[in-house]
């Protein structure tokens, strides 16, 4: 035990006496000064900007509150802009159909679809309708025929005053108005 204690003391004394040799003091000193200078430079730029924007406020807490508020507002503005841009992107990816333009494409399928929409409007079910092109053409042809016949009938009635008078009388009796197609 005595020998162990002696060894313990020796080793501790040796460590105590041997202070670590700090031989790169000048390197550390240079690097520290360099780091501090760099930090100072970046801090100066930041404080210059703050002074430029809020230099007119002399009360510390008011200045801090203003800085916080402006940071929050800028963050909100950026977020809002991002949301708007996302919405615009989403909308531009959606197909747009303008009715007035679609009339000129009555021979095409999309034109027919537009025509259908015009004819039936809200009466059309919201879900997709499965209809062949041929069926669509037949339907539209019938509608066109019906319109032509209606116009001819109106013309015929206009040309014959007696018939017109008779029909008006009948309609009044039935309490109905003329239906416009």
């Amino acid at each position, binding site marked *: 035990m005595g020998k162990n204690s002696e060894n313990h003391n020796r080793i501790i004394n040796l460590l105590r006496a041997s202070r670590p040799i700090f031989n*790169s*003091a000048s390197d550390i000193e240079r690097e*520290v000064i360099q780091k501090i200078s760099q930090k100072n430079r970046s801090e100066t730029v930041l404080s210059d900007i703050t002074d430029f924007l809020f230099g007119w406020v002399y009360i510390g807490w008011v200045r801090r509150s203003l800085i916080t508020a402006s940071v929050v507002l800028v963050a909100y503005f950026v977020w809002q802009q991002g949301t708007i841009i996302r919405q615009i992107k989403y909308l531009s990816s959606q197909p747009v159909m303008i009715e007035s333009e679609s009339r000129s494409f009555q021979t095409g399928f999309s034109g027919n679809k537009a025509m259908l929409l015009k004819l039936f409007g809200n009466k059309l079910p919201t879900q997709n309708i499965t209809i062949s092109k041929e069926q669509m053409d037949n339907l539209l042809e019938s509608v066109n025929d019906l319109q032509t016949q209606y116009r001819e009938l109106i013309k015929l009635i206009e040309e014959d005053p007696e018939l017109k008078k008779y029909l008006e009388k009948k309609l009044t009796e039935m309490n109905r108005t003329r239906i416009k197609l």
Partner: protein
Amino acid sequence: MRLKSVTPTILTDLKLIEECRGGNLEKFRKLVQMTSPFAFSVAFRMLGDEDLAKDIVQETMVTIWQKLNKIKSAEAYKTWIYRIVINKCYDQMRKKKSNPEFTADENTWRLISDRISVEPSAELENSETAMIIKVLTNKLSPKQKAVFVLSDLEQMSQDEISEITGISKSGIKANLHYARKSISVMVEKYL
């Protein structure tokens, strides 16, 4: 058990600190020159690694520059700088936890034995000091290591250690007892 020897201490004055606070880099250079050997000594003895100790010194000096306003007296400066070094060493030890621990083989112990028996009065080189510290304090917790280094190697009083580490005096006694016992066991076993 504990031998008294004169240990150099950080000598600085409030005037120098005041000048540094004013942003005088030349004065701070002087403060770095005066302080860094002490910071290096503690960091080196805590970590047993010269390069890591240098990094700690560098980081400590930058922290000092940033927080110089908090210093109220030259005496507080001394405690404060040691506290920064110790805390940075703790961080470093936490990082090193994932690394494999240093284990000494028979050759290492023989080298240490030869070193203390053949030339007990000659001072150790940094590499030798690092090796011995690593071997002896390998099993100690960071707190035990800090108390051992500050008390037995840096020869600080319990009050100073308590102020630096934030450990109570009874805690210091307990940690120191455990550290010394652990080192004695290793010395008994291998030397």
